[in-house]
């Protein structure tokens, strides 16, 4: 670590900032159902999730190594490119958090890397296959797989458990939800904290501070774990509200079925060679559980806005990252300008979020005015919402202002194989 240039320091700090946004963006995945069904108090839930994320970060460095090893000599990635990619990913994560929509942090990071790489190296080696097999198909498959499993599971638990009532049943469902949410948190820690470790290690290698093929240094593992845990603990309450209350109304049985399905899908997919995004799996599981109860209803307008956000994640992060890379190339002052823009926009988004605060005190309130439009959940309205265009929200405005680029994944984009 003798040569630790300024740009490297900036990349490391930005990567940790991304890790932090990743943490509070994805708290909802593990804890939205437990919080909304009342199995755990909000603060307790995020604290537990944070600890498990931290533990998960130390469990292995396998994912980090896939990102950081063997990619550098082929691509010659400069630290500025990684910086630009992170800027795109962070801004998209903050925007989706502001409107309270769950979206995949991995897709944001992947999109950022693609955009920055294309802006840096040109649209060479375009690989549509990678886009389809690693991004599009999993994004469609994950919610369906998790949703069907959760739907059948909640049907089953309602049927079998008709005679289960009283304290024993309440305690049982509570314990079950906590266990499965814990598994999701742990899996998230091993996966997502390691993505940041991989990125930082990659930047250190690219900047010449580390020998190629090095394992992540201890301080990288520690700081990445702490950043994601801190983000998780602060909690993305807006997204938790959407996932736990906005998509459907969850009872403990459904929460248990949804979280079990999500945990199973995440573990099965990462070990059978078809990686599925945590966010997509959990959202699908929650909707499936919503459909699995008699009289249960999924608010398709919220779901549609979420799907739109999923579709935009990769191109939007790519465009921002490409712009950032373009400015960075103007020189050192360009990089500084991007850093200033990043800080200014993050601050602006935070300021806007303060207009209507969502935190642990009101995350499970039934009054969901603001982020979600109040909606009578009748059969007809639900059906109409399913076919009519989604209500105008911030995401759609964004769609109008950002020209959708032909997203062109670089096969060398490091996270393609591991992060989706």
């Amino acid at each position, binding site marked *: 670590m003798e040569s630790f240039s300024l740009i490297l320091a900036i990349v490391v700090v930005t990567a940790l900032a991304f890790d932090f946004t990743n943490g509070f963006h994805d708290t909802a995945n593990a804890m939205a159902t437990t919080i909304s069904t009342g199995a755990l108090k909000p603060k307790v839930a995020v604290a537990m999730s944070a600890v498990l994320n931290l533990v998960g970060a130390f469990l292995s460095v396998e994912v980090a190594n896939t990102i950081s090893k063997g990619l550098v000599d082929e691509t010659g990635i400069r630290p500025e490119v990684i910086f630009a990619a992170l800027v795109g990913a962070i801004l998209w994560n903050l925007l989706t958090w502001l409107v309270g929509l769950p979206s995949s942090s991995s897709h944001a990071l992947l999109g950022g890397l693609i955009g920055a790489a294309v802006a840096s190296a040109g649209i060479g080696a375009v690989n549509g296959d990678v886009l389809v097999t690693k991004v599009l198909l999993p994004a469609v498959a994950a919610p369906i797989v998790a949703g069907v499993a959760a739907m059948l599971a909640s049907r089953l638990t309602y049927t079998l*458990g008709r005679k289960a009532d009283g304290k024993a049943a309440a305690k049982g469902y509570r314990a079950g939800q906590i266990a499965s949410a814990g598994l999701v948190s742990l899996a998230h820690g091993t996966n997502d904290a390691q993505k940041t470790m991989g990125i930082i290690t990659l930047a250190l290698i690219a900047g010449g501070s580390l020998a190629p093929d090095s394992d992540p240094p201890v301080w990288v593992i520690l700081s990445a774990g702490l950043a994601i845990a801190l983000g998780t603990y602060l909690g993305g309450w807006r997204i938790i509200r959407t996932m736990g209350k906005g998509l459907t109304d969850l009872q403990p049985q459904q929460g248990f079925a949804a979280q079990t399905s999500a945990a199973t899908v995440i573990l099965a*997919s990462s070990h059978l060679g078809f990686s599925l995004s945590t966010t997509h799996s959990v959202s699908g599981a929650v909707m499936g559980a919503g459909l699995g109860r008699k009289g249960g209803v999924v608010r398709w307008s919220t779901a549609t806005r979420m799907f739109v956000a999923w579709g935009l994640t990769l191109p939007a992060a790519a465009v921002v990252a490409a712009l950032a890379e373009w400015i960075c190339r103007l020189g050192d002052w360009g990089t500084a300008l991007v850093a200033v823009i990043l800080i200014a926009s993050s601050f602006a988004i935070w300021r806007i979020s303060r207009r209507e605060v969502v935190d642990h005190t009101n995350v499970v309130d039934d009054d969901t005015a603001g982020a979600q439009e109040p909606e009578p959940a009748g059969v007809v309205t639900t059906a109409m919402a399913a076919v009519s265009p989604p209500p105008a929200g911030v995401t759609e405005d964004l769609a109008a202002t950002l020209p959708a680029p032909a997203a062109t994944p670089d096969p060398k984009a490091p996270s393609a194989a591991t992060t989706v």
Partner: protein
Amino acid sequence: MSIDWAALGSVFGVSLVVTVTLVGLFTLGIVGLSRQERATAEGGSATLAVTGAYACFAACTAAVAYGIYLIVA
């Protein structure tokens, strides 16, 4: 374009079977415990239900342990 349908299919199958089995077992465990709760309230006992319930919970615990093993390994 090579889409690994076999992997996707097995993810789907395994997820479905494991989720439904686990949730089913766990629910049976809960049913057993609440049966015992009722029996106790009426002054009796339900040994068989309790034994079955703990067997179900043990199976679920084993599944969670396997999940942690998968994460760590």
